[in-house]
């Protein structure tokens, strides 16, 4: 008997590989419906069940030289985890992993852009016997004030519901 993930055809991303979250200081409307996933290749999605939801907000804030706020953005991630199938024993998958901007204020023509890019392929972060599908998403926020600042967060969503930040 082969390993469960190989039987399932490996773990694949059936969503997007990149999307804009904020463009020219404005939240992109399509970001909330853009997502990536880490699901089994050979198993129809409707055969996966047991999904649970995980989400959290965080802030991207850039403060100016006089304590003035140049960029105030609230970002949010959401993903569904714990997707299971009888065909891949003990494996948990992740889908609908999305990052979007809840609100943003940009002052003084400072300029702000944020995008999300899937970094590499989805993978098994667990073991051969207990696979945990995972997908890494790189979120990059760029600020163009007097000094160009950029900030990146590498968010990896896991099938067991955990999110690691690099």
């Amino acid at each position, binding site marked *: 008997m082969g390993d469960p993930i190989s039987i399932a055809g490996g773990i694949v991303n059936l969503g997007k590989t990149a999307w804009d979250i904020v463009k020219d200081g404005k939240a992109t409307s399509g970001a909330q419906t853009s997502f990536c996933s880490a699901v089994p290749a050979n198993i129809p999605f409707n055969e996966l069940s047991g999904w649970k939801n995980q989400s959290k907000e965080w*802030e*991207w804030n850039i*403060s*100016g030289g*006089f304590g003035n706020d140049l960029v105030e953005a609230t*970002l949010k991630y959401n993903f569904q985890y714990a997707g299971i199938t009888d065909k891949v024993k003990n494996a948990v998958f992740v889908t609908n992993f999305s990052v979007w901007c809840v609100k943003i204020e940009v002052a*003084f023509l400072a300029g702000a852009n944020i995008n999300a890019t899937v970094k590499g392929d989805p993978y098994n972060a667990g073991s051969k016997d207990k696979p945990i599908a995972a997908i890494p998403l790189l979120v990059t926020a760029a600020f163009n004030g007097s*000094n160009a600042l950029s900030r990146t967060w590498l968010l990896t969503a896991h099938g067991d519901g955990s999110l690691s930040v690099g």
Partner: protein
Amino acid sequence: MAADPLLDALGKFKKDLPDELKKGKTVASISGLEKSINDQDDKYKDQLDKLLKGIAADKKAVGKDKDALQQLEALEKLASKDSDVRLKGEDKSTSPA
């Protein structure tokens, strides 16, 4: 929020305005810049440019009037550096973890 040196200087300039500058281009540009700074709007750089051009014009107009020239040069020094300081960002983000 920390004190705003340019807003303070603009207020002081208006208050201590010498007669020869009362109808100058500098004072005419101040209210627009103050509004832009307070509102944090996208006209800030245009308003700042307008102030600096006004100061340059008034410097020529006042000629050798030492007091007026000193006030204009003090404001010019502060205003010319303002956007560099004001728009110099510091990252104060939280973590998604």
